[in-house]
């Protein structure tokens, strides 16, 4: 049981880190854009 829990925790952690990395790439690009549209512009 403890072994299964540990392995699951490792898997979840690895997947979270990978997802965070891709989100980081996405956000880094978005924050560097010239001007992302604001809420006001959208309406």
């Amino acid at each position, binding site marked *: 049981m403890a072994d299964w829990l540990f392995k699951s925790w490792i898997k979840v952690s690895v997947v979270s880190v990978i997802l*965070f990395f891709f*989100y*980081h790439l996405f*956000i*880094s690009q*978005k*924050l*560097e*854009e*010239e*001007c*992302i*549209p*604001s*809420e*006001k512009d*959208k309406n």
Partner: protein
Amino acid sequence: MEQNKDIADIQAAEATFQKKKKFILCYHSFSVNNFKKASVQIRKIAEAAGSPISIAVIPAFGAAPESEAEQFREELEKFVNEGYEIMLHGARHRADLSINRSIAGKIALLVSNNEAEFAGIDERFTQALLKRSLALWKAHGTGKPSGFIPPIWFGNKYLKEQALNIFDYYEDFNGIYHKVDGKIKKTPSSTLSFSILPSAILGVAQTYACLKMLLPGGVHRLVFHDKDFRTIGEKRILNMVRYASTLREKIMYKDL
């Protein structure tokens, strides 16, 4: 045509769902020493967000000449008249090193480079410093601040209760507090601030802040300081504000 209507309905429903998530946008440490530069920065942030924001003000004049103090007062008055929300941010912000502090308070000073003014001080000094902060604010003669934010969010065990006896709102690292029917109500809220972080992790911190805005839960506080305009850069700050505004509704403390 019918299909277009459905799409519009779905988009409206999605927008309403997203707007249920809220965040607070606050500019910290507006003071007599930086008000000229900070005023421009605050207005740029507010423009990106689409409405006035909250401003945490350090009320002390220090050794500023009277003409500067007068301009600072005028700027504060302009902000209040334009609908910005004022929060009090300590008395001087910088800690008085001659006051006795608890071990936790001393560690807080070490971490904050002696900026955590209220960290670990006793009940009497907390009361005195709070009163001093309010007296300094009253000298500016610009209404009552909505709440109190201790410098670097480090307080002590007496500060929350004492601050809520004077102000409507008080906050620490983990939440925002206000009194409802005599009881203290906590609103869960993460502090998303960058000013004391080492530059090596600023990129990851910005991603974390955006992720917190994206995920449900809490009324998070997105906080900017003058320093962030040098370390993060204006473009990234304004884009972060615009991005957060598309995910959550920006509110003020008084809207909680």
